Every structure is written in C-alpha cells, then in structure tokens.
C-alpha cells in the first residue's frame, strides 16, 4: 500500500476516533439536536432535547464504529498484502467503499437495536394512517439507488463480455457491484424494519422528532449502495474504454458524468432531508412541535 494512502487512512482514522469520542460528550449531543432543529425548521422542546440528542449521537456512533471496523479491516488487508497489490488510486477507492459499507452496517445496527418507551400513565399519540419507506426518503434517492446498482451490475457484465482480464478493472467493478447489491439489500430490509417498528410517543413533537430521526437513518442507509455503485460504474466505464469498446465507452462515461450531475442538482434542489416533512407533516408549523401548542401531555 502506498505511503500516501497509509498516511491518509491513518489521518481519517484519527479524525473518526475523535468524532467517536465526541458522541460521548453531552454538549455535542445537544448541539447536534439543535443543529437538526434549525435545519428542519422543527421546534425542539426542552424536555425532548436530551432524548433527541442521544438518539442522534447513538446513530452517529454506530456509523463511526461501523466505518472504523470495516474501513480498518480494508486498510489492514491492503497494508499486510492480504488483498494483493492494486494501483494506489484504486486502493483508496476500495477503502472509501469499505468505509461507506461500514457506515451503512453500523447505522442499521444502531437504528434497529435502539428502544424507546413512554410512561404508561401519559397520553399516547399515534398516526392514524400507515406510513411506508417511501414517506421517509425521496424517490430520487430510493429509486436512484436501485438504478445505480442495476447500472454497475450491467457495467460489470459488459466488462466480462468485452473480455477484460481479471487482473484489470473487472475484479474491481465486480467487487463494487457485489458490495453495492449487498448494501442495497441491507437498505431495503433495514429501512422496512425501521419504518415498521412501533413509534411510542407522548406528544406530537415526539412523533415528529421520531420521524425526523427515522428519515435521517434511512437516508444514511441508502448512501452506501449509491456510493459503491457510482465508484464501480466510474471504474467500469473507463475499463470498457481500455478494452477497445471505443466510442460506446466514451458515450457511457459522458452519460455517467451527466447522470451524476443531474442527480446531484436535482437532489440539492429537492432538499431531501425535509422530504419526510412534506409527506407526513405537510401542514406542520414551527410552533406545532412546541411544548405548549400540541403536546398531548
């Protein structure tokens, strides 16, 4: 493994460890809760501050631990030569891909193991209609992840058909395609379980905040398959160009780059972090989540 890759990996690892340490500091949890409140334009009642903050950092902690575990294993594998030699640029992509996969796995575990209780003598609030995963994540991300994974698998098949050697990009693309498929399956299963889990809430504010955290977790989960599929596709289309596929491969490169730009712009414009509010709480006002306004308690 190249010295520069080792240095960058070590630096990122230290930053991640510092971030992990921060999740144990109460002030950080409080800051994250209010940051989320400001971004989403949802009032954060003082009595929910601690609960929301601790759930947000628990999710972050899971993501960082997952990233450190899977990313660390990848770094160790390359450093010891267990994964063989590859180009420095490709090694970095593998490690970053492993980090994304780790973030997805860690987030899923943290989200699925958390539990929330409401005292039995308090009023309980629930949504009267059923919610689905589609209410928590924008179509551009949910459908986009599936499309991106189909594309990277198609590129891997294209490389195999074009006769690329296993030493070339075929192995890398096949690796990213397999990882993208696995993390997409993880997203589909975990997101359904997260959204299907009960939402014990004692007030409207609690329910809105539970939705906010769920939406955030589901969005974190979808990042891994998208990132892995995009990496695999980029490597794959350049590999196709090298195999002599010629003009078709360059058209493919152009299409991938154009698709990425369009997806990024569309995603930025649609503000996907606030998507769940538009779907589940279309008439929500800032004051609706304040303690005095609609809390049933």
């Amino acid at each position, binding site marked *: 493994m190249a010295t520069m890759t080792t240095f960058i990996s070590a630096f990122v690892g230290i930053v991640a460890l510092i971030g992990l340490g921060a999740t144990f500091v109460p002030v950080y949890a409080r800051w994250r809760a209010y940051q989320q409140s400001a971004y989403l334009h949802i009032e954060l009642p003082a009595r929910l501050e601690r609960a929301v903050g601790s759930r947000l950092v628990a999710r972050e902690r899971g993501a960082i631990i997952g990233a450190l575990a899977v990313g660390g294993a990848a770094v160790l594998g390359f450093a010891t030569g267990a994964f063989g030699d590859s180009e420095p640029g490709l090694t970095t992509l593998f490690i970053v891909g492993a980090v994304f996969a780790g973030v997805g796995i860690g987030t899923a575990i943290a989200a699925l193991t958390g539990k929330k209780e*409401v005292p*039995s*003598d*308090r*009023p*309980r*609030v*629930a*949504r*009267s*209609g*059923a919610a689905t995963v589609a209410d928590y994540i924008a179509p551009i991300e949910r459908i986009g992840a599936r499309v991106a994974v189909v594309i990277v698998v198609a590129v891997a098949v294209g490389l195999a058909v074009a006769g690329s050697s296993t030493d070339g990009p075929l192995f890398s693309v096949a690796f990213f395609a397999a990882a993208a498929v696995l993390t997409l399956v993880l997203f589909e299963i975990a997101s359904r379980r997260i959204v*299907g889990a*009960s*939402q*014990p*809430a004692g007030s*409207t504010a609690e*329910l809105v905040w539970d939705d906010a955290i769920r939406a955030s977790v589901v969005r974190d989960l979808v990042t891994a398959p998208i990132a892995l599929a995009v990496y695999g596709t980029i490597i794959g289309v350049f590999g196709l160009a090298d195999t002599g596929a010629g003009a078709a491969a360059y058209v493919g490169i152009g299409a991938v780059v154009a698709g990425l730009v369009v997806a990024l712009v569309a995603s930025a414009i649609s503000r996907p972090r606030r998507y769940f509010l538009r779907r589940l709480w279309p008439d929500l006002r800032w004051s609706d989540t304040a303690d005095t306004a609609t809390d*049933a308690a």
Partner: protein
Amino acid sequence: MLTIDPKSPVPPFEQLRLQFIEQVRSGELAAGAKLPTVRRLADDLGLAPNTVARCYRELERDGFIETRGRNGSFVSAQGDAAEQQAQVAARAYADRVKQLGVSPRDALAWVTAALEA
C-alpha cells in the same frame, strides 16, 4: 392523529373508535388511505391488540373501513356512510320504541337529551 388518554373516563376502545370516525368524516383520513396494522397501532398507543382489533371490526361493520385480506385495512369510499349508519341506528331505535309502546314524543325527547348530554 390519534390520542389515547389513559386517565380519561372514556374507555380506550371508544376513544379510538370515535377518533377514527371523526377523521373519516372530516376527510382527514381519505377514502383508500391505509390504516396501521393492529399490532403496530396497539404498540404505538400502548393498547392490547385485541382492543385495536375490536375497534377495526366495529369500524368495518359500520362501513368506515374495509379489510382487504393480507393487504391490511383501508378507509372505505364513504359518500355519507356516517349518515347512512345514523339512519340505520335511528330505524333500529324507532322499531324498539314501537315494540315498547313508548310515545314518539317521549322517544324524541330522550334522543334529544342524550345528544345534548
């Protein structure tokens, strides 16, 4: 939004049933809207699954919702099902009043008093 107050003198089953009816009538729950599963709603509201199941059964009996096998429960296309049900209830009351030999004037007075209570 559904709210169950454990300190209310109204039984949880009735609180739930009345809120569903109100939301269907007001259009907050539109025709075709899917309801949460019995287990999910019971967990969310801290009720026994049997309580929610009974509520769903009565709502279905009264024409507010319909069950589509394993797909779950959905709000029925309403029109004015509530008015239809009210008329059915009024008919049953009138029949019973006749059987008992009570005068229509007294029967109406009791209904009015009950509605205004």
